[in-house]
C-alpha cells in the first residue's frame, strides 16, 4: 500500500498487556475516541455506558470491554443503508455537501458502479458556479462513458437538473446523478437554491429526487454534525457518502451523526479514482476506527 505509518497505535496497543479494567484504560479509550473525531459528547455517552457496565460487573475484563465497545459502535452504525427503492425511471440522485468534500468525484464513482451493474447513467452538471466545475464533471463523464447534461457556466442549476431528468426520461436512462455546487450549510440563499432544484424536479417526478446524498469529508471534525443537521432538515438528506477515508482521518464524527439523526452512511470513498467507492459496512468501519493508520486499507 502507498501509505506509511503514524505514531498513534490504535486500540490494540491500548489493550496490550492489560489484565484489568481501570480508569487509565478508560481514559486512553476516551482519548482514542476523541482523536478519531467521535466528539466529546458522543464519546462521554459511550464511555459512561461502559463504565456503568463495568461497575455492575457486566464487563469483567479488558477483552469483554473491547468486544462490548465494538459491538456497541457497530449497532449504532448498522442501520438500513440500502438505496431507496422505486419503480420510477429515471432514478434521480441529488448529491450535495460543503465545498471540496468530494461530491463531483463521488458522482463519477457512483456512475461507474451503476454502469457495472448494467444500468444506464446520465450526469447533470448542476454546479454552474465554481470555476471549471462543468469541465471537471465532463471529464469524469467521458472516463465513465456516461453522457453529461450541461448548460453554460452561471446558468440556473435547477434548470440543468430538470433538463437532465427530461432527457433521461425520453432516452429511457436508468439513473440520473446531479452534481451541485459546494455550499456551506450556513448560507441560506444557497440552501434555498438546493431546495429549488428538488422542487423543480418534483414537477416532473413527484417522488424525485429519490436519494439526496450528503457528501461528508472524513477529515472534518465536529462541524460535520452541523452540516448533517442543516442539510438533513433543509433538504431531506437520505444518506451520507463518507469520503477521503484513505488518509489517516478516521471519520469518527459519523458515529454521533448516525446515532442522533438515524441518517445512514450509504457509501464510503477511499481514493481519487473511479474504483475507490463501496457500500458502507459498519463492522469494517468500526474495525478501522480502532486500527492504526497503516493497518487500514479499505480497498
Amino acid at each position, binding site marked *: 500500500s502507498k501509505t506509511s505509518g503514524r505514531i498513534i497505535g490504535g486500540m490494540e496497543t491500548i489493550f496490550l498487556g492489560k489484565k484489568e479494567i481501570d480508569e487509565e484504560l478508560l481514559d486512553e479509550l476516551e482519548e482514542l475516541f476523541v482523536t478519531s*473525531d467521535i466528539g466529546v459528547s458522543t464519546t462521554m455517552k459511550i464511555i459512561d455506558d461502559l463504565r456503568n457496565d463495568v461497575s455492575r460487573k457486566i464487563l469483567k475484563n479488558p477483552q469483554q470491554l473491547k468486544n462490548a465497545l465494538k459491538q456497541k459502535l457497530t449497532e449504532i452504525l448498522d442501520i438500513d443503508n440500502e438505496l431507496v427503492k422505486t419503480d420510477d425511471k429515471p432514478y434521480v440522485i441529488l448529491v450535495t455537501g460543503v*465545498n471540496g468534500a468530494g461530491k463531483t468525484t463521488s458522482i463519477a464513482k457512483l456512475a461507474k458502479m451503476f454502469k457495472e451493474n448494467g444500468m444506464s447513467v446520465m450526469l447533470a452538471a448542476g454546479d454552474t458556479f465554481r*470555476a471549471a466545475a462543468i*469541465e471537471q464533471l465532463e471529464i469524469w463523464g467521458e472516463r465513465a462513458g456516461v453522457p453529461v447534461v450541461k448548460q453554460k457556466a452561471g446558468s440556473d442549476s435547477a434548470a440543468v437538473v430538470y433538463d437532465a431528468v427530461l432527457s433521461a426520461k425520453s432516452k429511457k436512462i436508468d439513473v440520473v446523478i446531479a452534481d451541485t455546487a459546494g455550499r456551506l450549510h450556513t448560507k441560506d440563499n444557497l440552501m434555498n437554491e438546493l431546495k429549488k432544484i428538488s422542487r423543480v424536479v418534483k414537477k416532473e417526478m413527484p417522488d424525485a429526487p429519490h436519494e439526496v446524498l450528503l457528501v461528508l469529508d472524513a*477529515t472534518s*471534525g465536529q*462541524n460535520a454534525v452541523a452540516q448533517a443537521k442543516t442539510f438533513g432538515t433543509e433538504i431531506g438528506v437520505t444518506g451520507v457518502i463518507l469520503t*477521503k477515508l484513505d*488518509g489517516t482521518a478516521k471519520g469518527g464524527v459519523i458515529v454521533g451523526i448516525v446515532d442522533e439523526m438515524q441518517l445512514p452512511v450509504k457509501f464510503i470513498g477511499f481514493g481519487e479514482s473511479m474504483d475507490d467507492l463501496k457500500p458502507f459496512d459498519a463492522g469494517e468501519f468500526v474495525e478501522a476506527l480502532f486500527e492504526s493508520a497503516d493497518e487500514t486499507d479499505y480497498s
Partner: protein
Amino acid sequence: MFNTLNEKLQSVFKKMRGEARITEDNIKEAIRQVKMAMLEADVNYKVVKKFISGVQEKALGEEVLKSLSADQVFIKIVNDELTSILGGEDPSASKITLSSTPPTIIMLVGLQGSGKTTTAGKLAKHFQKNDKRVLMVADDIYRPAAIDQLEVLGKQLGVDVYSDKDNKNAVDIAQKSYEYAKKSAKDIVIIDTAGRLHVNNELMDELFNIKKAVSPDEILFVADAMTGQDAVNVATKFNNDLDISGVILTKLDGDARGGAALSIREVTGKPLKYVGVGEKLDAFEPFYPDRMASRILGMGDVVSLVEMA
C-alpha cells in the same frame, strides 16, 4: 452552538465570582469547561491537554493572587494565552515576505479540496491590487480540469497563467514557469499544486522536488477550517517534509469553530497568515489571532465583558 457554550461558561464563571483568588479547587470545573469547549472546537486532544496544563500553571501563579475577581482573571488568562499562541497581536508576523530579487515564489500545498486553487486566485488578486505583476502556475497535473479551473480564475482577474497540458511532469512545469516568470519580469509567482494525502510518499516527494527546483520564498500550507483531530498528523508531515513557511486557513465563513488553527500552530510552530472567508476571490483576510481565539473558545461575549471591566 456558541450561545449554549457561552451560557455554560457564564454559569461557571458566575460561581467563581466573589472568590478572592484562583485556587486549584475553584478552577477545576472551569478548566473542565474550557477543555470541553476546545475539544468541541476540534482542537487536537493532546494540544488541549498541553494548553490546559500551561494555563493552569499561569492561573495559579502570583499575578492572579493580586487580582480582585478570580473568574475574570481566569478567562483573561485563557484568552490571552490562546491569542498569544496563535500569533499574538503582531500582524506583521503574518505578512508574506517579498523577495529582494523578484520574482517572489509562493507555493501552495495541502490536502485534497482544502482550497489551494481558490486561494491562488485570492493571493493573485491581493498582489494585483498592490500593483504587482503576478503569474499563477497550473501545477496540478492530476485532478480533472484543475488547469481549466486556474485558467478561469486567471481570466476573471486578468492575471497571467502558466500552464502546459501536455507536460506530465509537475517539477518540470514549475521549473519552466520560473524561467518564464523571469523572462516576463513578474514580481510574484503563485504555484498551485495538486491536493494530496500526507501519507502518499510519491506525491510528497513530488512537492519536495518542486521545492528543490524553484526554491520558493513561501510554502503555504492551505488547511480547511473544518478539519478535525487529524490536522496534527497532516500538518506535521507537510511541515517535516517541506519546512512550510506559513498557513492559510480556508472556509472560515461557515460556523466551524476552527480549532485546527491551534493544532496546526502548535505542531508546526509556523504562523497563520491569511484566512479564506468565502468562495469569491476577494473573500480573503489577514489572520487575526484574537478573533480566532474567541472563536475557538466560543466565549467572545465573556471576553469582551472582561475587557470592558
